[in-house]
C-alpha cells in the first residue's frame, strides 16, 4: 500500500486545566483516506486533543498543520474553514430545529434576508444520495432515533465540505448492529477521500475498523500501532498501563427467594408518552439480573419508578413481599432498597455538601444521625470516617465538598452510602459510566460481592460488555418492553445485539 499524504498533523500539543495536565506534548497525524483510531480510557485526554483540533480549546503550546500548512485555530470557525468537521459524543444538535435548520445553522443561505430553506433541503438531499446517508431534511431532530441523529451530524460536517472528520465515541449510543452500519458509512467516506479520526475506548471496535491505532494514557501518547500487530490484551495494557483482567471473576449464582417482582409495569415520561410498556420480571436474592438495551428505551423511567422517583401508570411492584407500587423513596430505602442512580451528580449527590453529609443523605433523620429533629455531628463524623476507610474513598477530609472529588471517588461515596445500611436489593443504573478502569474494576467487584452475600441485584447498563460480564440472567429492553429474558451463559453478544435492535426472539 502506498503511503498517502498526511492531511493533519498536531505536534507537541500541551493543555493544562487547573490541577490537570490534560495533554502533555501530544503528537498525532492523519493520512488521507485512513481511519486513525485514538484509543484511551476516560480522562486520558482524547477529547481534549480533539477539542483543540476543532478550536473549542486553545492549547498552551503546540503546532497544528493541515495539508502541510501551519494553521492557527482559534475557534470552530477556523477549523471548519480548514476542512475539519467533528461529530461530538453528545450531539451538537438543536432538538427543536428541523434537520435542515440544524445543518444550515452558522452557514445559512438567504434570499433577500429570508432563510432559503428550499436550497438547503435540496443540498441535503444531494449529499445524502451521494454518501448513501438516508435522511429526511424536514424532520424535527429531537424526534429522530439516535442513530439517525448521528447521520445528521455527519452530513452537517460534509455540508461544510469537511475533508477531515473527527468522530468522538460515536458507538457509545449505538447497538452493535448500528455500529456496524456506521462502520460501513465510515468506509464509504474514506473511499471518497475523507480522512477520519475515530475516538473510542472500545477495543473490539478499533481492531475491526482502524487502519492505525494511537493509544493515549494520562494526557500522553503511549504509542501508535498497526491493528495487525496487536490484540485486545496488548491494547488494554497500553491503555491502562498494567495488565488488565478483562473478565470479572465470579462463582456460579445461588439464587434464593424473590426480592423484587415487577408485573405489567407501565410508566409515562414527562411528555406523557408511555416509555415503559407492561414490563414484567423478577429479581431473586443472590443473583444479578442485567437489563441490556440501547439508551433511551425506557430504562431510566423504569428505574425511577422502581425507586419511587416517578409514578407508575399501571402494573404492580412487589418488593420484600409487600406491594410497593407508588411508595415513596424513603419507605423503599427503609425497606432495604439501595439505589446507585444513573446520573450521580444530579440524583446521587449534593455537590456543594461535604462528603460527610453526602454519606448520610438518606439516613440523616434516623438514629444516630438525627435525634428528635436535631442533627448529631459526632455520629455523622464517625460514620464518614468509617466509610471513607472501608470503601477507600480518596478525599483529603470528610469535610471537602464532594464536587471536588474525581468521578470515581464520587461514585464510591454513593456506593458506600447505599451499601452501608441494611439492604436486600441493589438497583445499579449505569454504575460505571465515565469512570476509569480502576474504579470500574472496584465497582464490579463490589456488585459481585453483594450478590454473593445474598442480595438481589438489578443492573441496568448500556454497555453490553458490562452486562455480559456481571449478569446471571439478562433481560433485553427495547422500546419500553422486555423482549426476552435469558440465561447469561446461553447467549451470544451478537444475539443480544439483534434483540437490542428490535429483532423478535424466535426459538
Amino acid at each position: 500500500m502506498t503511503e498517502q499524504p498526511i492531511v493533519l498533523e498536531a505536534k507537541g500539543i500541551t493543555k493544562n486545566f487547573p490541577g490537570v495536565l490534560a495533554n502533555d506534548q501530544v503528537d498525532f497525524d492523519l493520512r488521507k483516506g485512513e481511519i486513525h483510531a485514538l484509543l484511551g480510557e476516560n480522562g486520558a485526554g482524547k477529547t481534549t486533543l480533539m477539542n483543540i483540533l476543532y478550536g473549542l480549546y486553545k492549547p498552551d503550546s503546540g503546532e497544528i498543520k493541515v495539508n502541510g500548512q501551519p494553521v492557527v485555530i482559534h475557534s470552530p470557525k477556523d477549523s471548519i474553514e480548514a476542512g475539519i468537521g467533528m461529530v461530538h459524543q453528545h450531539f451538537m444538535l438543536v432538538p427543536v430545529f428541523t434537520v435542515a435548520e440544524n445543518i444550515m445553522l452558522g452557514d445559512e443561505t438567504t434570499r433577500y434576508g429570508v432563510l432559503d430553506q428550499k436550497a438547503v433541503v435540496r443540498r441535503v438531499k444531494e449529499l445524502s444520495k451521494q454518501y448513501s446517508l438516508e435522511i429526511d431534511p424536514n424532520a424535527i431532530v429531537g424526534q429522530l432515533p439516535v442513530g439517525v441523529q448521528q447521520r445528521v451530524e455527519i452530513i452537517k460536517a460534509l455540508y461544510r465540505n469537511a475533508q477531515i472528520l473527527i468522530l468522538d465515541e460515536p458507538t457509545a449510543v449505538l447497538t452493535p448492529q448500528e455500529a456496524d452500519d456506521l462502520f460501513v458509512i465510515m468506509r464509504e467516506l474514506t473511499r471518497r477521500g475523507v480522512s477520519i479520526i475515530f475516538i473510542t475506548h472500545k477495543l473490539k471496535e478499533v481492531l475491526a475498523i482502524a487502519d492505525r491505532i494511537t493509544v493515549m494514557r494520562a494526557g500522553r501518547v503511549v504509542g501508535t500501532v498497526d491493528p495487525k500487530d496487536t490484540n485486545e490484551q496488548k491494547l488494554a495494557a497500553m491503555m491502562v498501563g498494567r495488565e488488565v483482567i478483562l473478565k470479572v471473576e465470579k462463582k456460579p449464582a445461588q439464587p434464593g427467594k424473590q426480592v423484587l417482582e415487577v408485573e405489567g409495569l407501565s410508566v409515562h415520561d414527562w411528555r406523557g408518552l408511555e416509555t415503559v410498556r407492561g414490563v414484567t420480571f423478577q429479581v431473586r436474592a443472590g443473583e444479578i439480573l442485567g437489563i441490556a438495551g440501547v439508551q433511551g428505551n425506557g430504562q431510566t423511567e423504569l428505574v425511577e419508578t422502581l425507586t419511587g422517583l416517578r409514578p407508575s401508570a399501571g402494573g404492580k411492584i412487589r418488593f420484600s413481599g409487600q406491594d410497593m407500587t407508588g411508595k415513596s423513596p424513603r419507605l423503599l430505602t427503609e425497606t432495604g432498597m439501595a439505589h446507585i442512580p444513573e446520573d450521580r451528580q444530579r440524583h446521587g449527590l449534593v455537590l456543594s455538601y461535604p462528603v460527610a453529609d453526602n454519606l448520610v443523605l438518606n439516613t440523616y433523620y434516623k438514629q444516630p444521625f438525627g435525634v428528635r429533629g436535631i442533627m448529631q455531628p459526632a455520629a455523622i463524623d464517625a460514620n464518614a470516617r468509617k466509610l471513607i476507610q472501608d470503601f477507600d474513598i480518596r478525599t483529603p477530609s470528610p469535610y471537602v465538598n464532594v464536587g471536588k472529588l474525581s468521578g470515581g471517588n464520587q461514585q464510591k461515596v454513593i456506593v458506600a452510602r447505599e451499601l452501608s445500611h441494611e439492604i436486600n436489593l441493589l438497583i445499579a443504573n449505569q454504575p460505571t459510566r465515565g469512570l476509569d478502569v480502576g474504579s470500574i474494576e472496584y465497582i464490579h467487584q463490589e456488585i459481585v460481592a453483594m450478590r454473593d452475600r445474598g442480595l438481589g441485584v438489578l443492573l441496568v447498563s448500556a454497555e453490553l460488555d458490562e452486562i455480559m460480564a456481571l449478569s446471571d440472567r439478562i433481560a433485553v429492553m427495547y422500546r419500553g418492553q422486555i423482549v426476552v429474558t435469558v440465561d447469561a451463559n446461553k447467549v451470544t453478544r451478537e444475539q443480544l445485539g439483534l434483540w437490542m435492535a428490535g429483532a423478535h426472539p424466535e426459538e
Partner: protein
Amino acid sequence: MLVPLLAVLTAVVVGGVVIVAVGGNPFFAYIGLIQGSFGSAKALSETAVWATPYIFAGLAVALAFKGGLFNIGAEGQLAFGAVTAALIGYALPDWLGTDLPAIIHIPLAVGLGALAGALWAAIPGALKAYTGGHEVINTIMMNYIALNLTSFLLNGPMRDPNPIDLSAQTPEIALSARIPPLFEGLRFHWGFILALVVAFLVYILIWKTTLGFEIRTVGSNPDAAQYAGINVKRTIVISMALSGLLAGMAGTIEVTALNYRHELGFSIGYGFDAIAIALLGKTHPLGVVLAAILFGAMRNGATRMQFLTQIPVDVISVIQALILLFVAADAIIRYIYRFKTRGERVVLTRGWGG
C-alpha cells in the same frame, strides 16, 4: 467576608460620585450620615429601630434562598402581617368584650400577624411546589394583591373612624398589645432584642436541625433531595411559609412596638432592601444582622445628611442598590480589586423550568 466589605466600600465611593454629580459634597454627606446613625444615644436607638424590621425581612429572604427559593414578596407578607397584627391589636378586646392582659395580647398579635405573613408566602410556595408557577413572579403578584387589599381595608372596613388627618390608617392598637420600649425616652424597643434572638434561632434551624438539612438539600439539589427521600414539595411550602413568617414578624413588630397602628405606605421598599441585606449578609443569619444594622444606619442617618447637605434621603436607595449590584455581581468586585481566587458559584435561583 472581604467581598461584602469591598462591595459596600465600592458602593459608597460610587455613591459619592453620584452626590458630586448632583452638586453635593460627599464628605459632608457621609459625615452627616454617620453622625445621624451612630453619633448619639438617640441616633443609636433610632438605628436599632430601623434595623429591626430589616433583620426580620433579611432573614426571611435569606431563609428562602437556603431553600432554593427567591422570595421577592417580603413586602406583601410584611404588609399582610402588619394589618393582621393591627386588627388583633385594636379589635380583639372589642370582639371578646373584655380587656386582655399584655402577656396574652402581645403574643397573640405578634403570633397571628406572623402567621398571616406565613400564609401569604405559603400560597406562592404551594403554587411553586404543586404547579411549577415561578415564585419570583408569584411573590411579586402577591405584593400587588397585598397592596390592593390593604388599601381596600384601610380605606374601608379597617379605617380609623376618628382619623387625625386624611391618611388611610387603622385605629391605634390597645395598650395591652404594645411592646414597651427598653429605655424611657428612647424608641429603642424589645423588638430589636427579639430580632437578635430570632436570628440565632434561624441559625440553629438551618444548620443544626434535620428540617434545616432538608431545606438546604432541596435548595441545593432538589433531584438529590427527592432521591434521598425528602418530600420536596412539602419542604418548598415549609420554606416559603417560614420565610413569610419572618417577613410577617417584621410587619407585626413595627405595629406592636413602634407605630401602634398600620398605615398605608409605611413599608414601601422593605421587601427589596431585604434582598440586598440577605445577599450582603451572604444568607447567613449573623451576616444578615450586620447588614441589616448597616442598612438601618443608612436610612436613619440619611435624615441628618439631608439636613446638612440638602441631598435627598433617596440617595440612600441608590447607594443600597449599588451595594446589591456589587454583592450580587461579586465577579465585578473580584475584577476591580484583582482577586486571584475565583469564588465558588452558589446557585441561588433557577430558571422558569421548575
